[in-house]
């Protein structure tokens, strides 16, 4: 059989390294199983010697680092396991000595050795530490950790240094410890997994390594304008208490008893079972309609997110709508709903700022800037403001001034309040305390009830007097602001504003929420984008798609080459349907019927990118992100995209955690180091992409480094999601994580 094996001295390749890692992983597992198994020392010595020879000859050049690093880490883990007192370490002295020598060659391997052993030692120490009832607050640097935690980690540091002899600066070691600590702390359930399958070797470990490696954000210094979407998001947790209050208020508003309302809702939900294509109230006219729509969506949607754009509260001028908005706001307030700044433009700007981008280079323009939103923004965020002196007569340093030729009156600004109703898939939500009737969401975890601009009083109720004064709310363009605020703004003024913005020489313009612009504003907005793009800095345009409205206009913008980078979530299917001729879409749907969900999303995204000739598309799918770039990317270009996505995922998560949207204890129970479903989805999709690309031999390459598909002239890269949420009934979902991640990624890459 030896003839079939590779001859010694052959050029090294990624697959061979994976095979070696798979073997070492089983050996490591056998040693750790508590048996008295000991691998033959001479084989381990020979493996290390071969690696040293290859490294000296530069044989690993061109092979993804993670494949070699897997082996280095496993060898150190084996060495550590064998060094335990009962093992008789003397037989392995030469092996450990050679390993030390190997890791003195490139410093990167010293780091791998350090990290591998830190990850090996920490879970054991952490177990005792948590058993003693200790907790930890989020920290972004070692020095921010409390004293007890620092002592714990310094102890681990000493053990690792003493065993490996690696020579790394203290700041590098402590940063590594901090990351490993949080990984172990957050992902305890995953620790000690005995999985030794190829899946773990080829995909899981490599992505885990990448996630640990790529999380340092280095400010780009790019000048970025983020335009348009901004509002307030109220997050609430859907549970029996919430429903009890909701039903009581609906009953009161409609003059019925809560029991009767519950029965009506139960009957309505039962009726959905009999319908092949259940229909829900599309025109919400009464509080009952809202209740039925919410429960109906939760019951019938598989993803929940598909309901987002269709579960909007329409803010027409009719007063009954305002009653519904008031009712919802009351419940939100009574059930402890938390308000946060929302909208991808706002969260993107805030995130970039806190990541260290220079404040003078991150500019935000939103159609309205009410005090409620202003209070939530960072003090040093530059916000474009036409209405000089509007807030308290003191524009302050953060106001980005634009010159407006027309004299503008200053009115109050309207607000957008979105209500994010989060719940746990699989857990029954009881809405009738009397009969126990309830609904069980399938895979969905949230419904967003959106409204458009409304005026609110200080107590949170709709300001009816103002509504009557300003029945029509229309946003005139990216720079148009709301017509009710500045009715004097002319199209010429809007153009002037765009030209002024263009003169600021932005590198990137991020446009989010564009689709909710009024139809009458399309032409002038297109002109504005043209002006911005035609500026001397030729800024790249990144568009965040939100919802399935106005897709025709979005397509038009893309076909006119106004979009350099497009990001979308669940809208990929709708957009695919919109760009493909109907018969082709039907054929595509049929061909994808038996394929995995991840692969289907990938193909739909590829179709969109190809048909619209997009240079870049970033899709945040349920379990993984899909990045598509035009042409065949070289490995370095692929690495840049992957790094940007991973850094963005990490920093966005940390930022949202530090804003207190989720507590660390909740996170510990609900997060894993990498979302397992993401890896599985990626594995399946990679397998199918591999076949499509004519690479039937391995899924490793598409799963790790993306793949070029000639038919689409696109390179597709898949990145698993980092965290899991919604696993517990009481947990709030992280809102805006997908949008913010793609904004940060775009700023890093385009």
């Amino acid at each position, binding site marked *: 059989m030896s003839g079939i094996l590779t001859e010694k001295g052959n050029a090294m390749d990624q*697959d061979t390294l994976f095979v070696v890692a798979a073997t*070492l992983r089983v050996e490591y597992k056998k040693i750790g199983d508590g048996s008295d198994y000991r691998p033959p020392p001479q084989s381990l010595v020979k*493996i290390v010697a071969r690696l040293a020879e290859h490294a000296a000859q530069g044989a690993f050049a061109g092979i993804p680092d993670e494949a070699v690093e897997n082996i280095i880490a496993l060898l150190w883990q084996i060495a550590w396991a064998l060094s335990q007192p009962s093992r008789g370490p003397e037989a392995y002295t030469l092996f450990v000595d050679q390993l030390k020598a190997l890791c003195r060659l490139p410093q990167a391997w010293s780091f791998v050795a350090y990290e591998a052993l830190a990850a090996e030692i920490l879970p054991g120490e952490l177990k005792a530490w948590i058993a003693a009832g200790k907790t930890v607050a989020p920290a972004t640097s070692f020095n921010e950790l409390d004293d007890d935690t620092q002592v714990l980690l310094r102890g681990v540091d000493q053990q690792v240094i003493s065993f490996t002899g690696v020579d790394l600066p203290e700041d590098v070691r402590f940063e590594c410890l901090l990351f490993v600590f949080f990984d172990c702390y957050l992902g305890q359930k995953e620790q000690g997994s005995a999985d030794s*399958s190829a899946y773990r070797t080829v995909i899981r470990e490599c992505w885990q390594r990448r996630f640990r490696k790529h999380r340092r954000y280095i400010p780009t210094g790019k000048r970025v304008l983020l335009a348009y979407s901004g509002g307030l998001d109220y997050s609430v947790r859907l549970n029996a208490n919430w429903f009890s209050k909701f039903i009581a208020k609906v009953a009161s508003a409609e003059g019925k008893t809560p029991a009767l309302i519950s029965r009506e809702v139960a009957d309505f939900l039962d009726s959905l079972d009999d319908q092949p294509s259940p229909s829900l109230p599309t025109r919400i006219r009464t509080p009952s309609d809202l209740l039925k729509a919410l429960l109906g969506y939760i019951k019938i949607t598989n993803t929940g997110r598909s309901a987002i754009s269709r579960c909007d509260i329409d803010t027409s001028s009719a007063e009954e709508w305002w009653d519904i908005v008031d009712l919802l706001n009351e419940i939100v307030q009574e059930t402890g709903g938390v308000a946060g700044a929302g909208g991808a433009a706002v969260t993107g700007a805030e995130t970039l700022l806190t990541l260290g981008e220079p404040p003078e280079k991150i500019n935000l323009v939103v159609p309205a800037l009410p005090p409620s939103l202003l209070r939530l923004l960072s003090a040093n965020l530059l916000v474009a403001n036409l209405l000089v002196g509007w807030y308290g007569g003191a524009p302050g340093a953060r106001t980005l001034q634009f010159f407006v030729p027309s004299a503008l009156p200053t009115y109050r600004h309207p607000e957008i309040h979105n209500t994010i109703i989060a719940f746990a898939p699989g857990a029954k939500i009881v809405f009738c305390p009397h009969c126990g009737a309830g609904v069980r969401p399938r895979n969905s975890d949230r419904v967003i009830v959106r409204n458009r601009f409304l005026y609110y009083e200080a107590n949170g109720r709709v300001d009816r007097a103002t509504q009557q004064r300003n029945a029509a709310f229309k946003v005139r363009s990216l720079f148009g602001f709301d017509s009710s605020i500045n009715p004097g703004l002319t199209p010429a003024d809007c153009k002037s504003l765009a030209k002024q913005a263009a003169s600021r020489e932005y590198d990137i313009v991020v446009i989010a929420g564009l689709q909710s612009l009024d139809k009458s504003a399309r032409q002038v907005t297109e002109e504005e984008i043209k002006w911005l793009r035609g500026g001397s800095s030729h800024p790249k345009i990144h568009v965040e798609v939100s919802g399935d409205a106005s897709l025709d206009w979005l397509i038009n913008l893309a076909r006119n080459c106004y979009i350099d980078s497009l990001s979308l979530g669940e809208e990929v299917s709708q957009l695919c349907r919109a760009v493909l001729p109907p018969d082709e879409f039907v054929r595509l749907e049929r061909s994808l019927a038996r394929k995995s969900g991840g692969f289907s999303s990938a193909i739909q995204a590829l179709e969109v990118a190809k048909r619209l000739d997009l240079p870049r598309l970033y899709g945040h799918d349920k379990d993984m992100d899909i990045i598509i770039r035009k042409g065949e990317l070289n490995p370095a270009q692929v690495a840049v995209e992957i790094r940007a996505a991973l850094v963005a995922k990490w920093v966005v998560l940390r930022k949202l955690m530090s804003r207190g949207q989720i507590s660390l204890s909740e996170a510990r129970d609900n997060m894993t180091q990498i979302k397992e479903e993401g890896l599985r989805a990626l594995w399946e999709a990679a397998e199918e992409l591999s076949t499509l690309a004519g690479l039937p031999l391995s899924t490793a390459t598409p799963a790790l480094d993306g793949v070029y598909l000639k038919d689409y002239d696109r390179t597709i890269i898949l990145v698993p999601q980092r965290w899991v949420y919604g696993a517990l009934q009481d947990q709030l979902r992280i809102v805006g994580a997908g949008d913010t991640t793609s904004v940060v990624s775009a700023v890093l890459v385009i």
Partner: protein
Amino acid sequence: MDTMDTRELLRSITTSADAIPPQWRLQLIEELARRRRAAAINPANHLSVLPGRGELQAVIGNRALPTEVRCQAAAVLAETDGRSALATCVDLL
């Protein structure tokens, strides 16, 4: 799959890449792993279906096969014969 003998299993695993879906191939190799584990627990039971060291090494060393299949074969060999598995690694390197 349960009724296939070891040689038939191996033949399916090592058949040309185009002729067999990747998922099916992984299932075959997992079946191989299952048999080896069963044999390790009670050697008398499964000798007739136990793939030999050489047969597994053939899979591990065959660069025409998908990476994950080779990895799985390496894991199967390491589970029951660590010495040979490590020696195979030395040869591969």
